[in-house]
């Protein structure tokens, strides 16, 4: 790893470089890539939950004026690689979940494509489906590992013995709902297949990683990666759902290859995103806590049950944060999965940490209640000296500082711990706290190129900016690494024509791409010195960080919520939500604050509203649009603030920065639920915090 970079531009409050285009609507997203005479692709989805297509009558659809092609499992191109069953579109008659793609229409206009898709008549053999997740199922299984490669189970000491002998215990089950990422920009691709020179595929795709998408698409179609170019200057949000290519990307490419030379546009509808673009599994979390009367934990355990699809496994690492969060000599974490006839779950903002800090952080609040101890103090009392999972010291760990600073800002000190006693008019008011955590990661490989011409430096790297601010922050890193002013640096991202970069995932983007840029800048200066000639150019790649062998690395935070519950209707409002984070060097306070506030807002949304409701009779999400899958709106957010403490960590990367894209959503829901208990005395253990639950009418 390169030595620390001296911050001059890093840390400055700079406005987004893409801001002026974004406020005018001139930033170009995938579905509006300027191309000549595109065809529109509309999808036909399965209307059964499991079985097979027995017949497709596309004659009426094909006869419609403007229809160019109807793609079906019978006629569609055979893919070179169908190992990833999610991506093996139109390769067999089998139906694995309701909503799966069974046909697609290409037409000259969007309206005709939609009409024709409706006219495709599909008959099925219905084999019956099973979509019910329950911890009582007798077919739960143990995955080999959990995302992205953690051990499935961990054991230390004897939790059962500690639970039997401890003076105070909590043993409860908590659940989180099924969630859909729902970025504002639906998944979209503009695709074109050119046959000249052995064939070349161009995908203007909304993706969190142009190079990973190219690799997947090349594999699926048996193409050389150099025959595929993926371009993505802007992403209208992803939150993990554009981190791995879903079926829409493959279908867009397949459709384009059916009409060589013609560009094809394929944008999922909002409804289709609920079956085809990934989601977060619902989770059932059985928590066990054992403690001495002074609050010190003697045992902590979480046993997780969640779902995956029968055709492709995704095991959310819900139990993982419990492995490192608090000290306790006896520990257990387990994950069990039900493989169901459901769409394929995938990444959603802070997979593992987000749902996995709900059960434990509410259970701690219940423990504090039983101990008669302040919940902030209880957390501080269980601060571990080293990472309880690996035994390594933390490169920096400032959870306690976040708790104390949050308590100070929030005015926690005067809090009366008794629940259900503060009534302001018709509203019951309470406050709650929870901790946040997110591991500090970097991907193994990414390369950047630095070029000097005409007095300016241009850095190219196939990175992505999903709204995170990377197109503003990467120039700050490059400027400091080169020792020049940020105004002298351009950074170009989002194109496989640039050097290969990792996916924007795991809050690792800035750390990974920034490290590559630092290496490239070092190589550039080594080669050309401070006075480079025009067209001077050098590349550099992220190097292994030996400090990861010596230290555990995570960002931490604390969130404080004030909740008001209407005494008659159960309406829940959150007048205040404060977060304090410790995430290393904050590279740009303006974009960082927006990311943290945005994460907390999504956490608030999870606490109050979000749940995808599956109808077990039909196997699909019934509330599959934004009128019924509620996300937080402007009026849900009142006084919502993100702050951070000044944390210096020379071990994580040359910038000293930890990832901040995901930690904001971690712990928020627990803080809100804990505050709702303090307001009402009703302990809700299942999300979301709907009014029937907060009034104690339902479990």
């Amino acid at each position: 790893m390169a030595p620390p970079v001296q911050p001059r531009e890093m840390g400055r409050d700079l406005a987004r470089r893409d801001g002026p285009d974004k406020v005018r609507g001139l930033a170009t997203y995938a579905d509006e890539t300027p191309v000549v005479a595109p065809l529109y692709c509309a999808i036909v989805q399965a209307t059964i939950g499991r079985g097979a297509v027995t017949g497709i009558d596309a004659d009426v659809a094909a006869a419609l004026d403007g229809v160019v092609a109807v793609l079906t499992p019978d006629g569609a191109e055979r893919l070179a690689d169908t190992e990833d069953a999610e991506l093996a579109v139109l390769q067999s008659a089998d139906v694995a979940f309701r909503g799966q793609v069974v046909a697609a229409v290409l037409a000259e206009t969007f309206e005709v494509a939609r009409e024709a898709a409706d006219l495709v008549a599909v008959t099925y053999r219905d084999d019956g489906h099973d979509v019910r997740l329950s911890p009582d199922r007798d077919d739960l299984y143990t995955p080999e590992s959990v995302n992205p490669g953690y051990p499935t189970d961990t054991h230390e000491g004897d939790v059962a013995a500690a639970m039997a002998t401890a003076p105070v215990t909590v043993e409860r089950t908590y659940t989180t709902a099924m969630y859909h990422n729902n970025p504002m920009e639906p998944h979209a691709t503009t695709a074109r297949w050119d046959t000249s020179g052995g064939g070349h595929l161009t995908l203007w795709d909304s993706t969190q990683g142009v190079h990973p998408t190219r690799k997947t698409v090349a594999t699926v179609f048996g193409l050389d990666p150099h025959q595929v170019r993926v371009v993505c200057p802007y992403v209208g949000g992803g939150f993990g759902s554009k981190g791995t290519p879903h079926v829409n990307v493959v279908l867009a490419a397949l459709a384009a290859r059916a009409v060589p030379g013609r560009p094809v546009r394929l944008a999922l509808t909002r409804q289709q995103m609920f079956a085809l673009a990934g989601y977060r599994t619902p989770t059932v979390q059985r928590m066990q806590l054992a403690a001495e009367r002074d609050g010190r934990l003697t045992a902590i355990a979480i046993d997780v049950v969640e779902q995956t699809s029968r055709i492709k496994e995704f095991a959310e690492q819900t139990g993982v944060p419990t492995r490192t969060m608090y000290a306790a000599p006896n520990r257990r974490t387990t994950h069990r999965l039900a493989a169901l006839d459901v769409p394929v779950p995938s990444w959603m903002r802070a997979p593992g940490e987000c749902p996995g800090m709900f059960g434990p952080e509410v259970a701690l609040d219940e423990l504090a209640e039983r101990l008669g101890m302040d919940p902030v103090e209880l957390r501080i009392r269980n601060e571990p000296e080293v990472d309880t999972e690996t035994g390594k010291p933390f490169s920096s760990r400032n959870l306690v500082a976040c708790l104390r600073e949050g308590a100070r800002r929030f005015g926690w000190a005067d809090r009366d711990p008794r629940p259900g006693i503060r009534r302001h008019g018709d509203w019951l008011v309470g406050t709650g706290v929870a901790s946040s955590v997110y591991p500090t990661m970097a991907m193994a490989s990414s390369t950047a190129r630095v070029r000097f011409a005409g007095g300016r430096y241009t850095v190219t790297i196939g990175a992505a900016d999903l709204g995170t601010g990377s197109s503003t922050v990467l120039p700050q890193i490059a400027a400091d690494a080169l020792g020049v002013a940020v105004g002298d640096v351009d950074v170009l991202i989002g194109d496989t024509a640039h050097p290969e970069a990792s996916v924007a995932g795991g809050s690792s983007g800035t750390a990974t791409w920034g490290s590559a840029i630092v290496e490239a800048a070092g190589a550039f200066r080594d080669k050309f010195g401070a006075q480079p000639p025009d067209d001077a150019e050098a590349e550099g790649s992220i190097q292994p960080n030996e400090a990861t062998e010596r230290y555990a690395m995570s960002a931490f935070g604390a969130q404080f919520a004030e909740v008001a519950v209407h005494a008659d209707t159960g309406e829940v409002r959150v007048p205040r939500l404060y977060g304090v984070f410790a995430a290393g060097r904050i590279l740009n306070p303006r974009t960082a604050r927006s990311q943290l506030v945005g994460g907390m807002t999504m956490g608030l949304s999870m606490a109050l509203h979000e749940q995808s409701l599956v109808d077990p009779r039909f196997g699909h999400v019934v509330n599959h649009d934004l009128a019924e899958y509620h996300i937080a709106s402007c009026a849900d957010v009142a006084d919502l603030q993100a702050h951070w403490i000044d944390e210096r960590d020379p071990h994580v990367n040359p910038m000293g920065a930890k990832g901040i894209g995901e930690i904001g959503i971690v712990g928020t829901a627990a803080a809100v639920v804990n505050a709702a208990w303090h307001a009402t005395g009703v302990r809700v253990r299942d999300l979301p915090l709907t009014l029937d639950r907060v009034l104690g009418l339902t479990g």
Partner: protein
Amino acid sequence: MDAEIELTVDGRRRRVSVDTRTTLLDALRQRLAVASPKKGCDHGQCGACTVLLDGRRVLSCLTLAVAQDGAEVTTADGLAAEGPHPVQRAFLDHDAFQCGFCTPGQVCSAVGALDEAARGWPSAVTTDVAAEPELDRAEIAERMSGNLCRCGAYARIVDAVQAAGRDGGAR
């Protein structure tokens, strides 16, 4: 069935042939290459497609193009014809967006909302509907709640709209 209509889009008169099922949003995006308004849901549930139609904010995905023959459409791009609109400047100053996809709709909606308030129109949270509405945070948040933002920029959006309102953002 196709129909020929005329629209004035961001100050430019445009003739365009539309399917009678074509929404105003799709007419703009797919037939006139005006991509400033975005398609987030196509069902009037998210607000990303908001434009000003004869000066009032509308959801262009719920508006049939054929019914708007002769209408004047202003997108977020059109608002910046003579440099950034005060609302756009406030969005930039307050970092009131991240991915930018909902932003053109937020901007048009904010311009419409400020104009509605200036005309004295109450909202669902206005306590005295006969009085001039006071644009406090609750009023702004209520009036902007038809525009969803998954990046969670709401707190900043309210800051921006409030600042723009002080600077005469209804323009």
